[in-house]
């Protein structure tokens, strides 16, 4: 069954709360580690970022995100669940564009697994971003 890793526009903060609430029934989990990525109003050449427009190669996002989840679950045997959500389309400064949520029996693996997943997303997820500035100009960004 394919999982939907992409949402249109900003990720509603209610998704994050819902994840925690859903885990109320999983009493084998002792901790959650989250990375929540937000669009930052960087300043480039005296111009402020007002939004980022994300685009994605969707079928490969699915394959790569599946791969990240498999790697995390196989490397961290205390991890119970990992959820990855990335925005596509327009996300304004201050809004959430990435959520990585990991639940584990104990904190150490929750934190390490979340960190690994975020680094793998940065490296391997076929997503592109166009920073849009307050004067309507834009530039394409790359992960370093």
């Amino acid at each position, binding site marked *: 069954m394919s999982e939907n890793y992409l949402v249109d526009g900003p990720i509603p903060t209610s998704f994050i709360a819902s994840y925690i609430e859903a885990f109320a029934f999983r009493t084998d989990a002792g901790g959650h580690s989250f990375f929540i990525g937000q669009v930052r109003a960087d300043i480039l050449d005296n111009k402020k970022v007002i939004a980022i427009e994300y685009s994605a190669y969707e079928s490969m996002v699915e394959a790569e995100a599946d791969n990240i989840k498999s790697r995390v679950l196989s490397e961290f045997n205390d991890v119970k669940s990992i959820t990855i959500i*990335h925005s596509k389309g327009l996300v304004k400064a201050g809004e959430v564009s990435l959520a990585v949520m990991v639940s584990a029996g104990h904190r150490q693996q929750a934190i390490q697994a979340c960190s690994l997943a975020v680094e793998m997303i940065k490296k391997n997820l076929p997503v592109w971003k166009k920073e849009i500035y307050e004067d309507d100009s834009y530039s394409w960004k790359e*992960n370093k």
Partner: protein
Amino acid sequence: MEVKVLFFGVLTEVTGTACKHYFDVFNLGDLKHRVIDDFPEIVHYNFRIALNNQIIDGDHELQSSDEVVYLPPFAGG
């Protein structure tokens, strides 16, 4: 014999399109040359190529309905 080529990120601006179909091209090397013929500016950009969701290097045979994707450096997260 038809192959679909997708462009992403800045390459959609360089080529003016997100998708182009090529006919009667049987290996990736030839396809790359045809893309350069159509969009000469593309040689100034960094990208990797994926064939049917797999990033590949070098030449490769193409089949009808293959999907070749030009991937600029990623920027997710």
